[in-house]
């Protein structure tokens, strides 16, 4: 790709809308009793007569999926529609056994909603057009060099929520932030396993560029399964489209795919081969009607959402960027919130930083298998607060704690890490250190306070890291009479 100059690029407004397919974590499929957890299953083992499209098979709506859709509505900042219905969307493909997909066409369970995203410290609202329930298709693979394709119907019938945004995003960073925020909300609302590796959430990005107020022709890049690929695909499309237009060529409205190896989008099908899906209400399924009581009951039982946790974490004095990193691991966030509840912000902040880990662009940072209880984390934090454990030593104890779940003080004692706060013992070490480091002692006395750190370090070294550094410093000053 040739480079376009920043000046040219600046002339174009980028407009992005995103469709996100979220798989619900129901036990069974949307319309059949087959197991819905296809993660490790052998192909075509989680399929019954309905998923296989056998004659006479009828769909029966999974009520748990409806409940999760209602939760998702609240997570998207809106309330569910009291009336919605299912429609059939027709096309022929081997991974669509019935010859139609059951979806919600014109009366979806969710209309409206909004999601606040954060880019470079700025907040921005992305509006949700709608979200509807539908059954996933199976999975087709096309082995290279073979004259056949393979179909796995384990995924056929998995409940999906397709969340459609308004074209409210204007940069790749915003697109990525939106994808992340949706991931957070679906994770915290506990409606999906939200594992991007397993395709639990997949993003389709609609991108157009324009020099005028009128929207340009858009392309849709489908099936992006990481935040990074959402960002990269938007970047690629923006540049590709601007280059097309600058070269005087029109943008073709089309569906594109993302080649992760080559980091580029490629044409899949143009509007000319677009299907006429012949939507009509599915006569096998009565409409979905929700009562006010049902909706209220689910609302009352909603788990805390990312914004609730943001408030809590920020109240612990954690900066906004770190808050986002903590949020990326729901298990950690929830633990920190519990610590906050039980023993206050200081301990919560300390535990949060202990458990903070780098977040990958592929989604959820792998949460370490945590063996320890909230109380043990609090106990560890209390050791630090009481100067019984240095922060360095605390990390060592933490590592062991996470692995074994043993009592933190016992670990510290076993590892001989508990700080010595016995004034007499430390005073003895201080006098030895001062005697051996006369030059540094003199410097400190002459007001060069930098050198005191060196002296404290020496005390720590001699004590085997066990001396309480604050106490050591105090005693140095005392013995030097300053």
């Amino acid at each position, binding site marked *: 790709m040739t480079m376009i100059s920043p000046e040219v690029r600046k002339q174009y407004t980028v407009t992005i809308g995103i469709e996100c397919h979220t798989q619900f974590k129901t036990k069974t499929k949307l319309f059949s009793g087959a197991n819905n957890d296809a993660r490790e299953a052998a192909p075509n083992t989680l399929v019954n007569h309905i998923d296989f*499209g056998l*004659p*006479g098979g009828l769909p029966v*709506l999974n009520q748990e999926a409806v409940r999760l859709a209602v939760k998702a509505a609240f997570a998207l900042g809106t309330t569910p529609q009291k009336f919605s219905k299912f429609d059939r969307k027709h096309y022929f493909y*081997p991974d669509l056994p019935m010859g139609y997909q059951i979806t919600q066409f014109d009366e979806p369970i969710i209309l409206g909603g909004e999601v606040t995203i954060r880019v470079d410290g700025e907040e921005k609202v992305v509006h949700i057009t709608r979200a509807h329930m539908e059954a996933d298709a199976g999975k087709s693979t096309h082995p290279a060099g073979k004259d056949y394709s393979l179909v796995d119907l384990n995924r056929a019938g998995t409940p999906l929520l397709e969340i459609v945004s308004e074209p409210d995003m204007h940069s790749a960073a915003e697109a990525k932030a939106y994808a992340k925020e949706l991931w957070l909300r679906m994770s915290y609302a506990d409606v999906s396993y939200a594992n991007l590796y397993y395709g639990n959430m997949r993003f389709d990005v609609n991108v157009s560029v324009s020099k005028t107020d009128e929207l340009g022709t858009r392309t849709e890049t489908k099936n992006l399964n990481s935040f990074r690929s959402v960002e990269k695909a938007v970047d690629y499309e923006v540049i590709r489209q601007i280059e097309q237009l600058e070269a005087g060529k029109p943008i073709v409205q089309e569906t594109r795919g993302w080649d992760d190896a080559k980091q580029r989008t490629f044409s899949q099908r143009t509007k000319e081969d677009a299907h006429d899906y*012949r*939507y009509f209400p599915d006569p096998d399924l*009565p409409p979905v009607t929700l009562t006010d009581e049902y909706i209220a009951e689910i609302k009352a039982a909603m788990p805390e959402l990312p914004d609730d946790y943001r408030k809590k974490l920020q109240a612990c004095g954690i900066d906004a960027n770190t808050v986002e990193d903590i949020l990326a691991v729901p298990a950690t966030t929830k633990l920190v919130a519990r610590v906050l509840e039980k023993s206050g912000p200081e301990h919560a902040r300390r535990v949060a930083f202990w458990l903070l880990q780098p977040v990958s662009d592929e989604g959820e940072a792998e949460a370490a298998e945590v063996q320890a209880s909230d109380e043990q984390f609090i106990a560890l934090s209390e050791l630090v607060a009481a100067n019984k454990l240095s922060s360095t030593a605390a990390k060592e104890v933490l590592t062991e704690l996470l692995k074994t779940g043993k009592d933190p003080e016992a670990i510290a004692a076993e590892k001989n890490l508990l700080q010595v706060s016995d004034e007499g013992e430390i005073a003895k070490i201080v006098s030895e250190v001062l005697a051996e480091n006369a030059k540094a002692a003199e410097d400190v006395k002459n007001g060069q306070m930098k050198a005191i750190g060196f002296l404290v370090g020496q005390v720590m070294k001699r004590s085997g890291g066990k001396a309480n550094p604050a106490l050591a410093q105090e005693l140095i000053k005392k013995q030097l009479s300053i």
Partner: protein
Amino acid sequence: MSAWLPIATIAQKVQAGELKASELVEQALQAIASKAQFQAIIVSLDDAAHERAKDIDARIARGENVGRLAGVPFIAKDNFLVFGAETTAASNILKGFTAPYQSTVINKLEAEGAICVAKANLDAFAHGSSTENSDFFTTKNPHDETRVPGGSSGGSAAAVVLELTPFALGSDTGGSIRLPASFCGAVGYKPTYGLVSRSGVVAMASSTDTIGPLARTVDDAALVLDVIAGKDALDSTTIDRDAVSYTDLLGDVKGKKIGVIKEYMGEGLDQGVKACIEAAIEKLKAAGAEITEVSLPSLSAALAVYYIICPAEVSSNLARYDGQRFGFTSSDAESLDESYSKSRAVGFGKEAKRRIMIGTYVLSSGYYDAYYKKAQTVRTKIINEFEAIFAKVDFLLGPVAPMTAFKIGENVDDPLQMYLTDIMTVAVNMVGIPAVSIPAGVSDGLPVGLQLMAAQKADRALLGLAKASEELLV
């Protein structure tokens, strides 16, 4: 003398050890073989039926209570999935397809001790009024082998009238139980939509498909309905059944308000049919029924509405027959698209293709509003008209069809004429109400059916009226 006792009596005698299920199955299979020239049957299930009969006899010998249909043989239209049996819906595309699961209705019948001995012929995928659309062969009318038995449950109706078994199962999407019952002289009962589960029955038009019995008497039909009716977790469109048994019938016509549908008694009605219906009306009047003439102006649109909505649903329901997972697959396809088109081109018959084409057209973008949506609007209007009428009368009455059984081949080149056969039955399906065809005499040696209808869920009342009428008309 009739070959079969009333169903309840058969079951009682089997349970009492006076009759053996094995002998009844043998009797049915022999009847099937001896009446083979009528071509009512696609396949008989000799081994499975014998095995079940043996099991039932053994259970009875052990003193077990087998059920209300103990040892009663029956025939299922070949669009019912019967576990382990070939289920073709009389279509080439499903030829050789063996059912790996079984319909709810068959499960319920078997749970009461009934034994499925054969699968009956039909118009392929239940598309038709004569069984001439069967991809295999045409069933012959028991009263005249040169005539059709009606359709689409023609094999089932003929089987009952030929006394192959005491009852048979049919499905009624636009008249497919009532029409062949009328043409063959059987009782054909179409329940309220949703009263009987559709699970495991090859779908035709989901919003009107109804499962029901064909039998020789209303009592027999009512007993079968009582066994198969009720909500099914596998069919979301099913409704709760009556708490009272459908066999508990108050068979009195006195004081019953019956409306004769004016639109069904006018132009185009065969004079012989008309005479039979009018004679039936007179008998009902004499027995104390309050008969009035009623008009349902929207009925004129019912057939048109039906032939939009039904093909729309058919085109969708037949999409799964794509040659990729089961049934017929074209072996000379070079690509996926070719595999689809060649498998379907060869596997589907003319009528299925016609309905797929019409259905696809009316659902197409740009035509949806003008056809499908408009048809649904008119359907609602028809429903409202029926509701208003049922506020005034208890039942509606009319012929089942404008004619008696026609000659084989008479209408095959004129699909419109064939569709007109359904003109008096489709409205019932559009509205979802129950209706029954009972024998009401003979015209030129051919049976004429009387059609009685009731409001939604008034199945027990309708069966009661049918029973009383049956006694008057015999």
